[in-house]
């Protein structure tokens, strides 16, 4: 089973986590067009590559961001939202 490193709780098996979807910046809902909003809500880029993702560590209730390459399934770093200046390497 894959390991994932929670920035608060350390490296844990994937079974302790819930996937929260890709982290995406919503367009400004007051200024964007209907089409832009609909694209944000309904479209996802399935192209493999580096993605920012939401992950939730269930036992502690911690949401964090993981930067993962969806082609290699390699997580380069994880951090709490807004605290992405620290680099956390995935457990070896």
């Amino acid at each position: 089973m894959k390991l994932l490193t929670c920035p608060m709780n350390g490296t844990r098996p994937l079974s302790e986590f819930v996937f929260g979807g890709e982290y995406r910046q919503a367009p400004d809902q007051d200024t964007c067009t209907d089409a832009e909003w609909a694209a944000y809500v309904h479209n996802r880029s399935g192209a493999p590559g580096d993605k920012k993702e939401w992950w939730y560590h269930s036992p502690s209730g911690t949401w964090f961001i993981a930067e993962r390459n969806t082609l290699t399934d390699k997580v380069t770093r994880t951090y709490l939202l807004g605290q992405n200046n620290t680099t956390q390497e995935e457990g070896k």
Partner: protein
Amino acid sequence: MQQFDVKSIIQTSPVAHAQPRDSAKWEVINGMDTAVEFASTAIEDARKKVLGVADVSCLSRYGVKGPNATQWLLERGIAIPTTPNSWTICEQKTLVLRLGSSEFLIEDQLGGSACTRLASDATRVASVYKVPRADAAFIVSGSEALNLFSELCSLDLREKSLATKDLIMTQVAGISATVIRQTLNGEPVYRVWCDGTYGPYMWEVLIEIATELGGGAVGLAQYQNS
């Protein structure tokens, strides 16, 4: 109107549903009906050495969280574990668990009074939020304890990996739980807390495996003098 007295409310251990009502000896401790003896002292002693599981849900607990929780506790004389996800002991052997960085679980041991004191403090302070607790809590002791956890938890709980003051929030038997390793009466034991509503399930699982491994249920009496 009928008369009721809060003092007459006797709670039952959240684990009790899974425990033998008739063959165990029960006693009310901290207002909670608790199994204090499952078998003779000799048998329980032996179990404790191999793999003993005791229900200590009746210990008093107090939970608090929020950005100012640390400050609030310090002002009330509670020692604070210095790092997130660690624990410490303050007066009267009271356990202070730091869950993440800004949430705390205080647990009095038998005879302790910190939780009662904290609970009676009605002052409301900004960014300090009380967390009502209804935990099922267990002591797992004995030489086979790690063998038991190897089946219930995928983490390495050996001494070399779980440092003395480490606290981990993980999954035990598939449910969220908090685990520490502690020395009680000179013996290393594991302490486990989970949501009380999972208590009977957790007890059943712990006892099933403990029994297979040559241990079993241990009454609270075994820990009443510690």
